[in-house]
């Protein structure tokens, strides 16, 4: 019968009060861990996908919307812009490169993006299977698209106009896309995309316009720009915004603002979770303290049998620590289960996959802090146990 086992049995002897403490602490730890992970994922996803893009040029509208649609592909585009106008304004010595994007169709909720080979270079996308695009209506698909839609090299499909998944009326019947390549999984937005060349998008939509009897000049949805030096970031956006009908938005600024706003929500959640952990440690404290009253004879008895006061102290500290240990493990497991559930939800609604659900460094801290808080909570009961007077306690009955 070593002390740790006595502590363990003491906890099991009072299943109700032990469960309440464990449940509360598990909840708090699970929430903190969840918030840590979601915060990390959001920041990670947002920052990783900016890649080397310094500026996005698109139609006037909300700059956040422009960034969300053209970099993260999770919002509707702000509109189309004239190829001629954008090329003119970007004929600037400070511009290093520009990658045009043209949206048109989608297939079963996944976007078909018309762009140039430079787009895949930007995300260092490499082919797992097949080859790169050589002709119109050929597409290369992201790993998630391939997996979810069961497409492979050689598959054919018809795109749907816009992002409507169910809308079969607007299918472009005459034009079938052909999959020529599948990309390796990258953990970036390209996993979620169907990529064609720009001309494919134009061809399909010009035909639309022809039907309506109107000739149109080529258009882009947005252009991703990188600069040769930081001066470009200072000068060009202002130029675009003031002198043209186009809009320039800087991903770094918009994303920081976005993370800042989300961050507020996240830190509120984190505060709430920490509050729950504190409440749970108060519950540990109160339950140890209230049990102390009925256990003082037991403790005096153990002293009379030769237990050192420090051993009684340890007995109570162990009880607090065991509760924290069980809760921390249960909390981390719970947060993983919740992450998987949330991941499924995000996947279905935003085509984003949460990666890396392993332990992160903050969670080691969380683990240690929980143990520490429990230790502090059991300190007072432990000190009372330490100072118990054998003679007085045993003479009291």
């Amino acid at each position, binding site marked *: 019968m070593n002390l740790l086992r006595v502590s363990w049995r003491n906890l099991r*002897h009072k299943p109700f009060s032990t469960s309440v403490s464990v449940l509360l602490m598990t909840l708090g730890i699970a929430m903190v861990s969840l918030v840590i992970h979601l915060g990390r994922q959001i920041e990670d996803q947002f920052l990783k996908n900016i890649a080397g893009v310094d500026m996005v040029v698109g139609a006037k509208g909300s700059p956040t919307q422009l960034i969300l649609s053209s970099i993260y592909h999770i919002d509707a585009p702000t509109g189309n812009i004239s190829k001629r106008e954008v090329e003119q304004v970007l004929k600037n010595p400070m511009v290093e490169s520009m990658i045009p994007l043209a949206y048109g169709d989608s297939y079963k909720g996944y976007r078909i993006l018309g762009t140039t080979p430079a787009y895949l270079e930007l995300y260092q996308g490499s082919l797992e299977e097949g080859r790169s695009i050589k002709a119109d209506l050929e597409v290369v698909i992201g790993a998630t698209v391939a997996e979810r839609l069961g497409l492979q090299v050689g598959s054919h499909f018809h795109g749907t106009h816009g992002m409507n998944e169910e809308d079969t009326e607007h299918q472009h019947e005459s034009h079938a896309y052909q999959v020529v390549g599948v990309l390796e999984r990258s953990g970036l937005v390209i996993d979620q995309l169907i990529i064609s060349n720009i001309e494919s998008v134009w061809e399909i939509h010009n035909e639309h316009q022809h039907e309506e009897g109107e000739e149109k000049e080529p258009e882009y949805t947005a252009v991703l720009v990188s600069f040769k030096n930081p001066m470009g970031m200072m000068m060009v956006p202002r130029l675009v915004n003031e002198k043209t009908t186009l809009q320039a938005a800087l991903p770094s600024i918009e994303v920081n603002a976005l993370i800042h706003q989300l961050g507020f929500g996240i830190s509120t959640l984190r505060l709430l979770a920490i509050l729950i952990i504190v409440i749970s440690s108060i519950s540990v404290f109160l339950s140890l303290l209230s049990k102390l009253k009925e*256990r003082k*004879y037991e403790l005096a008895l153990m002293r009379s*049998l*030769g237990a050192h006061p420090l*051993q009684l102290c340890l007995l109570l500290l162990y009880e607090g620590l065991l509760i924290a240990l069980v809760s921390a493990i249960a909390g981390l497991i719970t947060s993983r289960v919740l992450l998987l559930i949330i991941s499924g939800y995000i996947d279905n609604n935003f085509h984003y996959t949460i990666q890396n659900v392993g332990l992160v460094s903050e969670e080691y801290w969380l683990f240690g802090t929980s143990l520490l808080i429990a230790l502090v909570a059991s300190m007072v009961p432990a000190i009372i146990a330490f100072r118990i007077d*054998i*003679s007085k306690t*045993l003479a009291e009955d």
Partner: protein
Amino acid sequence: MLKTSDLKFSYTPEKSFHFPDFQVESGDHLLVLGKSGTGKTTLLHLLAGFLSPDSGKIWVDKTDFSSQSGFSKDQFRARNIGVIFQVHHFVASLNVMQNIMLAQKLAHDKPDSHEVMKMLTRLGLKGRARARISEMSQGELQRASIIRGLVNKPVLVLADEPTSSLDDDNCAEVVKLLEEQTARVGATLLVVTHDQRLKDFFTNSIEL
């Protein structure tokens, strides 16, 4: 052997005790009789080392027990003195067997389940070894208490009011049990009580 000389203890200046000197040889028995308020419990706590005397000495087996302090006193008690309390306190979360083995463990003896089982069998508690404390009757708890007091083979056994709540038959039985079991380990037995019936069972007695 147990010997005291000039033992004094006071809680407050008004409530102080001066105990008569006595000596009990190894293996002998002594009955300490006293009405309530005469310091019975105080004397027992002094002899067990739960309290330290203001003055005077206690020798247990040639060791000046009263001059020891702190943890060495606790350890000396754990190894040499078995205390059987009036109220049968046990660790509620442990079963009977585990409680007795805890006494071995805390005295830094190797827990010996075989020995504990033998003692339980001898006192008719074999079937109750794994019983919860809350499932035990008072009589069973008293016997378990006696086993716990004797499990570390002490040289001195102190029993506090072992018979006060028992009828005459059970009273005689418990005294017999205490005498038998202390004789087995060759311990000195000292019983502190207000129960006048016990006079008939002890040859040596003092009155407080």
